């Protein structure tokens, strides 16, 4: 079994952009049609047997979610990272729950926090951290947390600021403003 995934990248019939290549670290970006094929071949041919994490970046400016799957080989701790872009509206991403059981939990969290659908994941609609959440998913960048916080929990109590000069001037009636020292007097 070859350990480095360069071979997969050169053998594949589709376009792969290499983001960063290093000792034991390989980060590529592919189009979303080829994600499953690339990840499965990395598992079968390079021994990337652990799914460490699925992470999401909400790039609202480009109107996409950037999903990243981080795979690791437990024998030599080498890492293979696959990124792909998905549209923000009605985002639907293939599930890897039947290959790695941890993916079921990662995908449940992403569904709750970003509203991403994972068709085929049996537990994606269960509550993960939030209980009975009915609003827009809170980690999406178009969700206004301050507005929600004020609407639900009330406005925070403001701090009281007191300027000592103003306070002394009001109570004693006089305040000598200290003159800053000139440079030649120092």
């Amino acid at each position, binding site marked *: 079994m070859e350990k480095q995934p360069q071979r997969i990248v050169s053998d594949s019939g589709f376009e792969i952009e290499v983001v960063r290549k290093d000792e034991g670290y390989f980060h590529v970006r592919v189009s979303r049609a080829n994600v499953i094929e690339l990840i499965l071949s990395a598992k079968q041919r390079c021994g990337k047997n652990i799914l460490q994490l699925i992470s999401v970046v909400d790039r609202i400016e480009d109107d996409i979610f950037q999903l990243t799957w981080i795979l690791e080989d437990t024998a030599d701790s080498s890492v293979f990272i696959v990124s792909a872009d998905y549209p923000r509206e009605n985002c639907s991403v293939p599930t890897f729950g039947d290959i790695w059981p941890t993916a079921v939990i990662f995908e449940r969290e992403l569904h709750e926090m970003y509203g991403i659908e994972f068709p085929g994941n049996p537990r994606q609609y269960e509550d993960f*951290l*939030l*209980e*009975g*959440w*009915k*609003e827009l998913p*809170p980690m999406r960048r178009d*969700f206004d*947390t*301050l507005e*929600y*916080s004020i609407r*639900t*929990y*009330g*406005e*925070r*109590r*403001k*701090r009281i600021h007191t300027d000592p000069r103003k306070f002394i001037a009001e109570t004693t009636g006089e305040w000598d403003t200290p003159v800053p020292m000139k440079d030649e007097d120092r």
Partner: protein
Amino acid sequence: MYCNKLPEIPDDRKKIWEKVDNMARANSLWVTAFGTGCGAIELRPLHTSRFDMERFGIAMRPTPRQADVLIISGYLAVKTLKRVIRVYEQIQDPKYIIALGSCTMNGGMYYDSYNTLNILDRYIPVDVYVNGCMPRPEAIIDGFSLLMKKIKEGKAEGWKNYIENLEYYRENQKKVISNWDLPDYNW
């Protein structure tokens, strides 16, 4: 499985006995071992040998049934509030709440978070606030001595306030906890 009866404030006893009781209560504050936020980490030095809170008669208890004091240590998430209500209502009367940190007073650095409460005393009655982010163990000891002073003077009556205004507190609690499935009172 639950008792449906709502709590009642006991009849007024003779003031002299209440004073004696309060003296005893103030000198043996037992705390529920329930950390709700980051401030729970400041309680560990407090109950080990360096700051040693047992010299004031303050001890940690594993269950709310044996405790008098609930410490809300730092920010309180909505999910935790539900557990806090359960724990607080299971503590026997009289019971006291100490709230630590600026998060419990006005939201602190989490004032714009979607999941943490801004003003704690809308949901449960707080007897003593200790400010700071987070308060050092010395400050928490200071808060405890303030609570002892209030108990001895008979002014730490948050639990009576809770029973009298249960509807108000319930309304606020149900407003933020969307999947409310607790009974009328968690005996």
